[in-house]
């Protein structure tokens, strides 16, 4: 009944939904490497556009969901960009705002740093939204040789987050009708945490012990190995994605290392 968060797996049939979790994980790592390696705005703009294209076309994530999931970070990035642009030193004046000189280098660098954060948030959204945590856990076991108990612990931790979120909402509502008023400020937030802790702890312990009983009674942990009826497999598409991402990362870092990257500023101006 509650409004669901954007950062949550939703089943679907898009290209990214069909991709195996490890390839998507590799894609996420590659995007992060590219984003961290690029300090020039036009490269960051290209990466951001590529990720946006992936989200819309390859992951079939609606613009509304993208907005809901990232607007807060978007605002943070814009303010980050503005502050950095105004404060970083530079030599080439691109233009002036109210008599204040804006340097091409600082505006460019600021834009690159701001976009970097947004790109990483957006690509994480794509990954989380299109990857079933259970499939990821299985992939870790079958493809990465992670022990299945560890993988399941990871999966259950992810699986239980929405339950705990819902429980916190219920507790908040339940205490609000007692006349508890939510206040701003750190001290009252700490007081609030203390009030939530006990009911949440009691409830979570009960749920956790129930889960343990439910799993053990169905032979979880009986053997060192277990069967996975369906486990994600690498397909041709997976190898293609992997190859493209690897090529991009190697090319970009290679270009950086050998000094082929020349700075062309987005805000060139005078």
């Amino acid at each position, binding site marked *: 009944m509650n409004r669901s968060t954007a950062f949550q797996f939703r089943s679907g049939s898009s290209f990214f939904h069909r991709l195996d979790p490890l390839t998507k994980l590799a894609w996420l790592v590659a995007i992060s490497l590219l984003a961290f390696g690029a300090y020039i705005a036009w490269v960051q703009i290209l990466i951001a556009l590529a990720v946006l294209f992936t989200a819309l076309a390859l992951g079939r994530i609606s613009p509304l969901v993208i907005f809901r999931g990232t607007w807060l970070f978007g605002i943070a990035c814009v303010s980050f960009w503005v502050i950095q642009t105004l404060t970083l030193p530079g030599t080439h004046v691109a233009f002036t705002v109210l008599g204040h000189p804006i340097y091409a280098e600082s505006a460019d660098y600021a834009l690159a740093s701001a976009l970097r954060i947004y790109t990483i948030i957006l690509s994480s959204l794509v990954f989380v939204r299109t990857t*079933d945590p259970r499939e990821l856990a299985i992939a870790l076991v079958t493809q990465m040789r992670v022990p299945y108990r560890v993988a399941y612990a990871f999966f259950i931790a992810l699986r239980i987050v929405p339950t705990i979120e819902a429980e916190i909402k219920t507790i908040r*509502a339940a*205490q609000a009708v007692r*006349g508890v*008023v939510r206040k701003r400020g750190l001290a009252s937030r700490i007081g609030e945490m203390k009030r939530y802790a006990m009911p949440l702890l009691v*409830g979570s312990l*009960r749920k956790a012990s129930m889960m*343990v*009983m439910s799993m053990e009674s169905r032979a979880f942990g009986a053997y060192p190995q277990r069967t996975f009826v369906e486990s994600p497999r690498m397909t041709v598409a997976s190898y293609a994605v992997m190859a493209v991402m690897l090529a991009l990362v190697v090319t970009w870092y290679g270009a950086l290392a050998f000094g082929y990257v020349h700075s062309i500023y987005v805000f060139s101006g005078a």
Partner: protein
Amino acid sequence: MELAVDNTAGMASLRSLDVNDVQEITIAPSSVRAAVAAEGSVVDIRGISYAYEGEADPVLREVSLEVGDGEFVLILGPSGCGKSTLLQVLNGTIPHTLRGRLEGDAFVCGKSVVETRVASFATEVGMVFQDPEAQIINTLVRDEVRFGLENLCRPADEIVARQTEALAFVGLDGFGDRSIFDLSGGQKQRVSVAAVLAARPRLLVLDEPTANLDPNGMAEIFGVLRRLNRESGTTIVMVEHRVDELADCVTRVVMMDRGSIVFDGDPRSAFSQRRAAHSEEGDAVPSSAWFPQAAEFALALADASGTPAPSDDLPLNVDEAVRFAEDHFAGGPRAALPERAAIPASEKPLLTVRNLSFGYERKQPILTDINFTLGEGEIVALCGRNGSGKTTLARLLVHINAPPPGTLMLGERDITGLSARDISAEIGYVFQNPDHQFVTDRVWDEIAYGLVVRGYADHAIEERVGEVLDIVDLKRYRDKSPFSLSLGERRRLSVATMLVLEPRLLVLDEPTIGQDHERAQLLMGLMARLRERYGTTILMITHDVRLVAEWADRALVVSGGRLLFDGLPQAMFANTDLIEEAGLLAPPVFEISCALAADRPDRVQPTLSLPHLVDMITGTEGRSA
């Protein structure tokens, strides 16, 4: 560790065994162990006592129970009597997962519980618990059903075949690819049953599997269990409070009290005699609190007509009760009684709901055009399936969800214009889980909280808290932590925290979930006292049809976000289309009276009151009034 090994009998007698030392025991060959358990019995427990780790008082005392192949055993008893604990012994959760002190011998499917790991029972014992949310591990139906067999390293094609078979058995054919989150409560519990059936266990153990379900979901589960027992011969041991629908499908009833078995026999003799049992708090409660209403009716009728209580032919369902009643008619035709008039809407309604529509997303309304009023001092039941919008509606009343302006009037005032604190002084809301509402560390502080935040004077607080502690009978716990109380006491405390503000309206969200009938009666008795004392209006969200029949002046039915019915409970139960739509079942007393009224309209009219029905049959109506 005291471990006596009787080698001559070839068995390890594990009396006085500290389970922490269990790994030191040399496990006897399985052939030897199998010889120990009684032949043909699925469960063979002899004189077990158990205390949780760190507790001195045992929860189980000298319990012996033998269950044969194909039996369907219902375990009954007041909260805290040890029935759930007993179930946990049946697959070794006690003593392997929950440690503690276990004495005595316990064999399940021929294996010693103490010597066998929980996982090794997976193919023999299936466990289903109360809360579907807590026991379901996976997100897709098929993964959940495959889970056990995957852990057992069975080949993939066998697993898929068993998954299909198990889902088909519980009536969820083709649900494999569905997300668990999109299922109803009844469907989720059927998935939990399928998930253990896939391993084809000999014994199915269920701990209140329908406590969180609406009557419709409950009927789905009981239907599956009945077929499983009759057609597949699976042995079932089950703890459940909802006896009306179960009494005639179980083969045996075990009653527990304070950790011991006090009755063990067939259902007819179980329900033919009232016995005394004890609540968690040590108060005496009549065992009839968990009798099926058909049996209760027969006992009351026998009492009233001075005939001996039936035992061999004690009715367990509506049809049998109707036949039983046929032989007990006495006296002449009764004078026509005036129909019970609908309660006139009070001149000044306490709460008016007008054209209320609500939804989190504009395109998905949860409530559509709801209109009703609540008068002073009414007890009103709000009924409907899980997910019909009942809780959303109730939460709008206390502003947990914000209602659109002009749709909710408290007296003359628009609720949307009031602050949360103003509303909470007039409308109390008791949540399903009392723990969620506790905000302090002490019972006294808990009750005083509402007064303190509203700036009451110390002496006024002292006086009112004392008074409320008396009403809810918690005075002796005034300095204890709320979390140290029993569930029944915590429930009373959460009501008390609302009472202290003397609200004009008290909303109860599923107040009797997971509680036996006796506890529900106690809580409703408290509500009736409140109404008498303060004129409080009570709005209760509930699936408990016996509660509605006994206590509600009026019933509201919500289905698909619309108000389908607003009227007398009896009129609601009489409308078969409506109760089907709302996923309700009529209480047995109503069905019995309807069946009798159809044959003898001059003698009986449909009623929700058991004493009234008895009076009509014995011809004492009016005399006893």
